[in-house]
């Protein structure tokens, strides 16, 4: 529309002026198109990134699956690619990741939800204003710092209580990862609670419910889709978390549910290989792409699931 205005000569303007405006407008129009194209190209970089991730992971994994059958990879219970005899069963790594994620959820989901309820429903404005930045800082602390904290603070505490605990153990990793994802659960759930309209609460009070009853039986159920979406996102983040588990959980892939033992997660394995000097192109090198592909698919599936839950089960009010 702007171009149309620029192209038509101003009423009462002389011929030459009109012509030069037109000439200018043609140059302008090309410039506008060029800019638009450049901006679109910026937008396409994100698509290119996704395509790049998928292409790299799939391409290198194909090389891996030429030598190891997908069945053996997905169902094998031994993971020893770095020494002989080599076994390529990824289950111990998946088990390690799940152990940490479950442990982290046990801490982060209840604490995060309770914080969200407190912040959204109870906290006076002044308390809220001080607590929100604290949660933001907690969310911004680099994961390697949490790893250090797990190793030098939490593990010694656990070993006081359970002396048989190893220096590296799943429990301390799970605890810090839990702390790490509390802010995510709290802030996303709080948004969901905020979105519940006022009149639902008022209707509940009108029926004689107390504030506690209103929150637990009206507000939280109404915000449930958002809350569950936040839970899933947080768990997906826990599965993808890398440095804290690398530092605290150890490097011994094993199928166990004992959190006091040393384990290895998918992410920690990838780090372990890239820290060593594994030659490019070998089967050991290719394992990181196969494990990376599995990790990518698990987290992507969870992210998509959380979006579906958010959209499909959202209670829509007016």
């Amino acid at each position: 529309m702007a171009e149309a205005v620029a192209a038509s000569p101003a009423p009462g303007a002389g011929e030459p002026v009109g012509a030069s405006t037109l000439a200018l407008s043609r140059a302008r129009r090309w410039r506008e198109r060029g800019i638009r194209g450049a901006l679109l190209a910026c937008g396409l970089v994100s698509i290119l990134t996704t395509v790049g991730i998928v292409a790299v992971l799939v391409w290198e994994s194909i090389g891996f699956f030429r030598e190891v059958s997908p069945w053996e990879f997905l169902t094998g219970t031994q993971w020893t690619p770095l020494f002989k005899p080599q076994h390529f069963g990824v289950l111990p790594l998946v088990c390690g990741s799940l152990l940490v994620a479950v442990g982290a959820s046990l801490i982060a989901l209840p604490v995060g939800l309770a914080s969200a309820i407190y912040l959204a429903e109870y906290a006076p404005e002044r308390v809220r204003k001080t607590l929100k930045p604290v949660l933001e800082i907690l969310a911004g602390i680099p994961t390697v710092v949490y790893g250090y904290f797990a190793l030098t603070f939490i593990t010694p505490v656990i070993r006081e209580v359970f002396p048989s605990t190893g220096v590296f153990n799943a429990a301390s990793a799970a605890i810090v990862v839990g702390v790490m994802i509390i802010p995510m659960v709290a802030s996303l759930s709080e948004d969901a609670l905020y979105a519940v309209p006022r009149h639902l609460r008022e209707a509940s009070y009108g029926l004689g419910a107390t504030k506690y009853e209103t929150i637990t039986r009206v507000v939280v159920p109404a915000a449930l889709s958002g809350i569950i979406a936040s839970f899933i996102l947080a768990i997906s983040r826990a599965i993808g978390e890398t440095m804290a588990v690398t530092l605290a959980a150890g490097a011994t892939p094993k199928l166990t549910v004992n959190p006091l033992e040393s384990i290895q997660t998918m992410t920690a394995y990838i780090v372990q290989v890239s820290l060593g000097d594994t030659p490019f192109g070998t089967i050991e090198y290719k394992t990181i792409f196969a494990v990376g592909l599995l990790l990518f698919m698990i987290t992507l599936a969870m992210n998509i699931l959380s979006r579906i839950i958010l959209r499909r089960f959202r209670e829509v009010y007016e």
Partner: protein
Amino acid sequence: MSADAATAGAVEFDVRLPRRRLWGHVFVWVCFAATSLAVLLLAVLLIDILRQGAGRLSLGFLDSFPSRFPERAGIKSALYGTVWTVGFTGLLSFPLGVGAAIYLEEYAPRNLLTRVIQTNIANLAGVPSIVYGVLGLAVFVRAMALGRSVVAGAATLALLILPVVIISSQEAIRAVPPSIREAGLGVGATQWQTLQRLVLPIAFPGILTGMILALSRAIGETAPLIMIGALTFIAFTPNTPLDEFTVLPIQIFNWAARPQAGFHELAAAGIIVLLAALLSMNALAIILRNKLRKQI
């Protein structure tokens, strides 16, 4: 029977009101305790790290290269590497991120492509950082033959923070009232002129805030840089973007992973420096944000 059906899903209140109120009180305290837990943990973490690392902090620590001997080791190479890497990350991600945000907010038609881009950005934000490391390793280090260089690391981090930059820039641009655009177009400016001279200057503080927060995430990233092969022991500072490098979080990781207590103290001292940098970046972003709020 119909009465049964009507009450089947209903909740019956306990008749004793004081008891119900008591539950309410208990619940508030439980929620409050959970929230305080976060504050408490942050305090414990900071105190623990300060206690262990403060003794190692000195000018010598900032100005020495890593060493096998804890008492002589420092973070000079890591500090320079971090500044180089984050600088290039900003240079790469700022134009790409803001460009994409401008396109999506101002130009994009409501079609399939736009929806795909937008969904894709949301999905990328949830991809674990180590996967970006895998991408960087295969594309920048191997295929583009940039080696284990500052540029390869910065490009990887730029892709990693791109979704954050795009989403926050979009919010900043969206916050500019439409009347501003209408005024620009009304006096005959082209769309780009309107954007460049009216919309973007107003959105700029918001965009900058998002950019600073995104870079503060890049500063703390460790895993993707380990993937692309940033080294853990380096006794020189980078001079060109193609030089090898290390960064502060990797240096901290390296020290934390050693069993000796001396190195743990070094790691804690490194963490203090890292957190100080992060907190000042966050403070800067908050100040910018508040300034922006006052204007509108």
